Structure formats: C-alpha cells, structure tokens
C-alpha cells in the first residue's frame, strides 16, 4: 500500500503527459477527417465514373487493411523504401506520421457515413431547392448539410468513441501516448519498474474521456431534435 501511494503521483504525472499526446492525436484526427471525409464522400457520389471508382478503390484499401499496418507504412515507407526519412526521428515526426495515418483512415470511414447521410436526405429537398433557383452548392450548404448531420450523429458518435481508443495503436511507431507511458513502468520509468498496474490504470482515462464525449454527443443529438 505504501509503495502504491508513493508510486501513484509519479504514475499519474507520467500518464497525464501521455494522455495529452493521446488527446492531441484525437483532436487532430477529427479536425482533419471531418472535412476530408466530406471530400471523399463527394468523390464517391460523383457522376464522373473515374472519380467514384478511384475513391471506392481508396476506401477499399484503407478499410480493408489494419490501421496498425497503415501507421507502419506511413512512418517507415519514406525512410526505408524511398530513402527520404521525411518524418525525422523525434516525437514530433512520429506525431505527424500518426496524424496523417489516422486522418486518412478515419476520413474513409467518415466518408461512407456521410455518403449514407447525404443519400438518405430525400431527393425532393434538392428538387425543391432547384426549382427555387438555388445552385447545387447553395442547396448542399443550406438544405442538405444540416439534415445529413442530424442523421449521421449516431453512427459518427460510434466512430468518435472508437477513435479515442484507436489512438493507442500509435504506440506501434513509439508515439508516446498514454499506453506507451503506462507500459514504460513495466520496463522501468521514473524509478519504477516491474509495475503493471499503471498500464491497467490507463483504461480509467479512456473511460472518463469517453464519458465526456458521450455526454457531448448526446447533447448535440438533442440540439438537432428541433426538426424532423
């Protein structure tokens, strides 16, 4: 007990540092994947066959392979295969590589959700806009978009909660996120070694954060309840 109380503040401090990195990756991924996903969704919905086939192909590759492998490829491919280590060796390089892999991966998943959302808005909405002389762009931003958002909040919520936990995969390229920080206490870190409880303790962080995310998303869902 005494050792635990001694270790606790040290572990919490280290885990906090790791969790900041986790949150940064989480936030950057959302910021990048929300708009990029929309762009990909437009590609999938394009009437130009070459465009829609190309995006389908990309989505197939990204959804069909493990995110962990994608992380390794994004991080190591430039250096090992192209002999051009664009990421550098430091934590910042690892973070940029992880961000890129996560954004690409999540925007593909988001794009499919967006696509479903756009297609679920009745075609009569677009036609009503057209006969009123609105452009397709005006119709999308003023009519379709909010109706789409309302429909996709539940499936996107699922993805967001998965993303919180998926950030742990970045450990594979040694990004110093919270799992990495917890695991370090097994080998030895901050004068503590052979301790496995810090690793288990990381789950608590995820749990609390996902609780907050869930509440916020439920609030958004309620906010969009004003129309049908």
């Amino acid at each position, binding site marked *: 007990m005494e050792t635990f109380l001694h270790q606790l503040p040290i572990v919490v401090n280290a885990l906090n540092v790791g969790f900041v990195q986790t949150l940064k990756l989480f936030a950057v991924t959302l910021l990048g994947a929300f708009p990029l996903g929309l762009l990909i969704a437009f590609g999938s919905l394009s009437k130009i066959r070459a465009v829609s086939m190309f995006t389908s192909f990309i989505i197939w590759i990204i959804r069909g392979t493990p995110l962990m492998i994608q992380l390794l490829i994004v991080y190591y491919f430039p250096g090992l295969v192209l002999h051009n280590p664009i990421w550098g060796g430091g934590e910042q390089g690892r973070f940029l590589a992880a961000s890129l892999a996560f954004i690409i991966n999540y925007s593909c998943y988001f794009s499919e959700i967006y696509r479903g959302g756009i297609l679920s808005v*009745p075609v*009569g*909405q677009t*036609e*009503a*806009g*057209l*006969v*009123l*002389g*609105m*452009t397709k762009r*005006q119709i999308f931003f*003023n*009519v379709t978009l*909010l*109706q789409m958002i*309302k429909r996709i909040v539940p499936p996107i919520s699922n993805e967001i909660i998965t993303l919180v936990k998926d950030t742990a995969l970045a450990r594979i390229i040694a990004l110093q996120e919270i799992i990495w920080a917890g695991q370090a206490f097994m080998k030895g870190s901050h004068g503590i070694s052979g301790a496995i409880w810090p690793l288990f303790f990381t789950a608590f962080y995820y749990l609390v954060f996902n609780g907050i995310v869930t509440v916020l998303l439920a609030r958004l869902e309620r906010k969009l309840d*004003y*129309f*049908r």
Partner: protein
Amino acid sequence: MPVLEVRNIRKTFGRTEVLKGIDFSLDKGEALSVIGSSGSGKTTLLRCLNFLERPDAGSITVNGEVLLDCADASTLRESEIRRKRLHFGLVFQSFNLFPQYTALENVLLAPRLLAKENHEQFADKERLNAEARELFADIGLSDRMNNYPHQLSGGQQQRVAIARALIMHPDILCFDEPTSALDPELTGEVLKVIRKLSEQNTTMIIVTHEMEFARDVADKVIFMDGGVICEQGNPREVFSHPKEERTKQFLSRYSQN
C-alpha cells in the same frame, strides 16, 4: 402572344416513352388543369417545364423567349438553366418544405440567397419581409409563420409551399397533384388557396385528380393518356361532352365514385 408555348415535347426513360409529343399553349392569367390516369405523363411534363428532366425533343417558349429547344444546342447550356427555371414555380405533391427552417424561413431562403448574388428583384429586405408576411396572410397562416414544418398539418405545409413558390414571382406556377398526399379534410384548404390564385389571374398549370376542382377553376383542361394529349379544350365541354372515347371512360370512372 401566349405566355407559354410547348411544342412536341418528348421524353423517354430507358425503353419507356413517357411523353410522345406534347403541344399546348397557355395565355397570361389562364389556369390549365391537366388530368389523366397515373402514368399518363402528367408529372413528367411538369418536371420538364421546371427543368428537372430534360426532354429528348421539343421546345419550351416563355414570353417569346425560347428557353429550351432540343434542336438548338445553345439553349441547352447548364449554366443558364437556373435563370430559365425561375420562369416557373413548382409545388410538389409531397410539399418538400425544408424541415430545419421555420415556415417563414422556408419562404425567405431562396430570395435571400439570390439577393446575396445581387438579384435586384430581392435586394430590398424590408420589402421582401413585408411580402412574405402578406403571403402568409393570404394563405391564412399568419399565426404559424414561426412554426417548423413538422408542427404543421399537411394542408398547412402545402400552403406554405405555395407561398414559397409565389415569392419568386414565377410567370407560370405549376402544381403537381398538390392535394394527393392530403386527407379530404385538408384538401379543401389547399384548393381554396389555389382557387384564390386563379381569381387573381395567376397563370397556372395544375395536375390534379380532383375533377370537380379541375373543372371549376380551370380556363382550359388537358386530358393526357399514354404520353399524349388525348383531348383539350374548355373544361365545361371536355367534362360534359368529351369527344374521345378514352376521355369518356376516364371521366365515367370518376363520376361513379
């Protein structure tokens, strides 16, 4: 000179020829009702007039301007369709109000967007708002302007949809079975609004299954069957003394009900 001249409109979907050469014209202030069984091409005709479908052949002329002539590629440019469309208004069977906007916002959305693009017609905000309020008074919904569509009955939604079309000042207002999605009780209030419009000499094309209404309101009636105009003329004549066998059959089915 007629407001609208439609010549030889043809439209094929896949292997089905839905419109097999439609010709008619409409004078300013006239109300035309289009009747006929489902699948006779009535809705497709309205959709062609509103540029929601492009006909395979034929021409549409409004106030002497050829809006569309399938034989003349210069009239088919995408970029001009938007402007040409504004000659027509369309009220849908399923209302198609925008659910996230209040009734008033539904009416004002398009003119406000056009005003941002320097359409002088809608530039005066005060006048636009005043006009919207007038329209709501006309349709009897002044007290429901700030309601969302889902808070309105079907009949009220359709009346808002009519106001939304009217604020654009189309030369020709089209109705695509405006009461088919409504129960009989709500049908009356929508028909009343349309009737009032015809009394104000609004140029209208009304596709409808309400035979009595088609006869009373219209200055002219067209009976469509199998993608062609089977019979057209003065409503009293067509309804009381149809010349074509097919028209008689169709009308007799209605009088039986």
